[in-house]
């Protein structure tokens, strides 16, 4: 196995008294897609949100353990959450473009991080829209509202928006669960391309999707990491009985 990009060590997460993640340790490879699977409420989304500290905004949350990105502990007091989230971007379950033009959606992040030059912003817009396979569809209406796009286009716009700050890691929380099959296929294609440049971690309910896009898979159940490893191995020869039963569709 290649050297890991993100290592999670003995991670525990509490929402008040609810112990949502129990002693999770996981190595995540760079330039690969890692899928987190498991039934609803198993902690996979909470786990994802630990990697860019989006849980910080939740009232009463407590995190123990370490999440190392290139050897730096994200939960160290010296970590600047803004710089962290620039390096670790996120795409959400529901497409959430801002009520602004397509152009302004993309440059929101770059502007936030201090890029003002018009030419540079124009370049970023075209480049990231191409990366998100959306440029052709929207190039003539960059100044039009992003809310007029279809759901699938909106989600690709959100991916482009996340890429515009030049992240190294991209977290995706069930990015296709609100999309139709055609849009889903486009986003999946996109994810497979993105792993050339980015480390991708994706939460999904859909095991076919996990099998289609992932290199590695981690199976969560009731806050515990049950099993992880290369996707083809985990899907064809799961070691744990619970993984076997989940994949066979016996629960969840």
């Amino acid at each position, binding site marked *: 196995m290649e050297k890991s990009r993100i290592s999670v060590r003995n991670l525990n997460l509490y929402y008040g008294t609810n112990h949502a993640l129990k002693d999770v340790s996981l190595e995540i490879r760079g330039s690969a897609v890692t899928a987190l699977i498991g039934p609803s409420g198993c902690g996979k989304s909470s786990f994802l949100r630990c990697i860019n500290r989006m849980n910080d905004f939740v009232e009463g949350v407590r995190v123990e353990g370490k999440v190392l990105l290139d050897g730096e502990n994200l939960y160290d007091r010296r970590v600047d959450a803004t710089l962290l*989230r620039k390096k670790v971007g996120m795409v959400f379950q529901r*497409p959430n473009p801002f*009520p602004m033009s397509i152009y302004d959606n993309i440059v929101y992040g770059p502007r936030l991080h201090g890029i003002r030059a018009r030419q540079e912003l124009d370049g970023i817009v075209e480049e990231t829209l191409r990366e998100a396979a959306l440029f052709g569809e929207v190039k003539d209406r960059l100044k039009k509202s992003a809310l007029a796009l279809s759901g699938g286009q909106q989600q690709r716009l959100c991916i482009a928006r996340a890429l515009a700050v030049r992240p190294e890691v991209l977290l995706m929380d069930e990015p296709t669960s609100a999309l139709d099959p055609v849009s889903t296929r486009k986003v999946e294609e996109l994810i497979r391309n993105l792993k050339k440049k980015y480390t991708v971690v994706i939460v999904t309910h859909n095991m076919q999707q996990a099998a289609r896009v992932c290199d590695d898979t981690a199976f969560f159940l009731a806050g515990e990491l049950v099993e992880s490893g290369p996707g083809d191995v985990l899907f064809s020869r799961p070691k744990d009985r619970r993984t076997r039963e989940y994949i066979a569709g016996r629960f969840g």
Partner: protein
Amino acid sequence: MDETTLYRKRKRPAEAFLLSAVYGAASVSVMLLCGMIGYLFFRGAGAVSWRFLTTVTDVAKKTSGIAGNMINTLYIAALTLLAAIPLGVGAAVYLSEYAKPGKLVNLIVFTTETLAGIPSVLFGLFGMGFFGETLGLGYSLLTGALTLALMVLPLIVRNTQEALRAVPEGYRSGALGLGASRFYMIRTVLLPAAMPGILTGVLLSVGRIVGESAALLFTAGSDGHLPKPGGSAFGTIRSLGEKMLESGGTLAVELYLQVQNGRYETAFGIGCVLIAAAFGLNLLVKLAAVRLRNRA
């Protein structure tokens, strides 16, 4: 009874009755409003003339006009909003985005709601005592504006809170996920998205400011003179600045005084001007809201 046909034999009487009742209620409401406006114009339009709008009441020159009152109204409205909008929007942002939900927040919300139910004459009494006497601002436009700011604060807080609550959660997480601080997120995403709702609060406030008389009688007084001509741009600013600490009656106050003195035609004339102003302001804010929505 033949059960196989889908055709209705007759209209259900209860439904027909209810339908005509709600139609009736709607038409009566519209007619009452139109009738009232029509009556006001019928009684007052004769008093409105170019002279009436552009001169100041002066016993010596035997003129009767409301130019000073119009300026005072605009002036007080501007001052009031200048004080109330930052305060109200700021408080609403704190309450809905920063404060932890709990007893304190509930108490503040309860207090604002109570404040909204207090009769305006009490605001006038308080404004006269606190701003006028304790702070020494006397009978002045500033005292009046500060009093009205207190009065419209709940409107702005409530409407801003509602508007912020209606902003989808995804906008917040989207901005925060890109590395925005909470403050940056509020400034660049939340407030623009909430702007139509905030404007609604501002519009309601303007309505109350323009229509208020009781709270202003005790605080801003009734002077109807224009600010002294400044002669130059700097002079005008200075003259306006001085006017802030002088007495000034708004249109609604003047209307009240005219009625007291039995000059009904003038009073109805001022009524016409107030209705026109209310209509114009409504239109303006509606247009602004539509433009904001289209831009999004």
